[in-house]
């Protein structure tokens, strides 16, 4: 298994990752954490101590909303995107794609050869 991504790389995209995980339906914290871990092949391990403060901030900013239920046999707080959150996700996704393209182009120009992982 490859090493975890550097912290500073993750920091700038954490919010985007969480918003995109919520794009296909409401989830609770533990599920979000699990999905990010699986999607990244365990290279992004979103600590609870980072995730919950982030979720609370997103809620305070009106990008997600939460509700409680115990359908799963355990009292859980479910998060889902608000219309504003969806809009933000789309805008940030655009920015991110452009940014990645920019970095990729610079790397290509530098003729960096990437060893296959």
């Amino acid at each position, binding site marked *: 298994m490859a090493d975890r991504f550097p912290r500073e790389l993750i920091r700038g995209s954490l919010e985007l990752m969480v918003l995109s995980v919520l794009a296909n339906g409401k989830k*609770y*914290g*533990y599920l979000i*954490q699990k999905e990010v871990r699986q999607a990244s092949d365990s290279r992004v391990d979103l*600590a*609870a*101590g*980072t995730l*919950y*403060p982030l979720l*609370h*901030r997103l809620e*305070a900013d009106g990008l997600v909303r939460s509700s*409680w239920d115990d359908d799963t046999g*355990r*009292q*859980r*707080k479910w998060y889902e995107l608000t219309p504003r959150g969806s809009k933000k996700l789309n805008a940030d996704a655009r920015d991110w794609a452009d940014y990645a393209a920019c970095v990729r182009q610079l790397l290509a120009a530098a003729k960096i050869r990437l060893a296959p992982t």
Partner: protein
Amino acid sequence: MSEREFENYLALLTRLLRLNQQQTSALSAELRAHMEDRMDELQSSGVSHEDAVRQALAEFGDAAGLAHHFSDVSLQRKRRWIVRWTTFSLAAAFLFALGLITFWPGRNAAPGIAAVVAQAPNANAQPAPTIVQEIKPGPLPGTRKSASARIEEELNKTTTIDVVEMPLKDVVLYLSETHKLPIAMKLKFLDEASVPADTPVTKSLRGIRLATALDILLEDLGLTYYFNEVLFITTPADAKHRSEVRIYDCRDILAIPTAAGDQPDTLSGGGPADFSPPPRGGRGGFPGRARPESERRAEQLIQIIKTNIDQDTWFDGGATYRVGSISEFNGLVVITQTAQTHRKIEHLLSMLREAAGLDLAKAGPVVR
């Protein structure tokens, strides 16, 4: 390690965040669900219950760090609140000042509301100045008390420490938050003594005085504390240099009349005469007021203090520097010691007063 540890963790976290009851239970329920999910997963992969708790808890990170992350979230809201609060306080201060000017005795040409109220009940009785006099110049109540006096007061309140393997710095933060006390760890000294701030602490102390709790907690780590506006946690070597002078009014114990001329309660049986006579000399009598009996008692009292409290901390004229010194003048005992020893002395004196049947409420004040 048990689930109780997680509850302690939640309690600390929510205290640090100063959440209200509703917020506390919401956040606790959310994090508890996460913790349980994680433990289920770990245990289903064969990890023992105890290890699962430990690992799941470790993944949360330390409470102080998590609280910090959370408080970043509410910082914006808090700032708005502070601005509102400050505005309110300024308005309140202004109104208070206005009240002072209006009710200041003798200042205002018109009698003012307070004077009217005071005279209303009975016109030909002595003007009852109670209401007017209650508004006195000088510092507001609460601001008068020095920071050190507040620490002293807080040290006498009961506390509860119930932690398992919690980093010392978190325990300190917890105490600082629950007692609303400024507590600082002198990291340089702690490092020199090889007691880093994240030394794990396991303690279960309930319903004892904060002073005692700190003594027990820090003694185990080879540390101690002293205070001077801030409560400092440091090494005994460092604390030793932090001495302070206090003056104990022991005229009641020594049966010396106070300046007011009233005869204080005397010790039954003529004082603590059962102690072996202390060495005389060094004390010149005061002209016109030869009181050999009370002088002898003062020497004995000094001896009692020195032999019963922190014996090896009193300077005895020898080659080794020691922090403590003690002398007496007219029933006032002047002592230089560390704050901790001072507290023990205070305790001993009140025990003496109790044993001698003296009125503790009438005991003279300690000047510091």
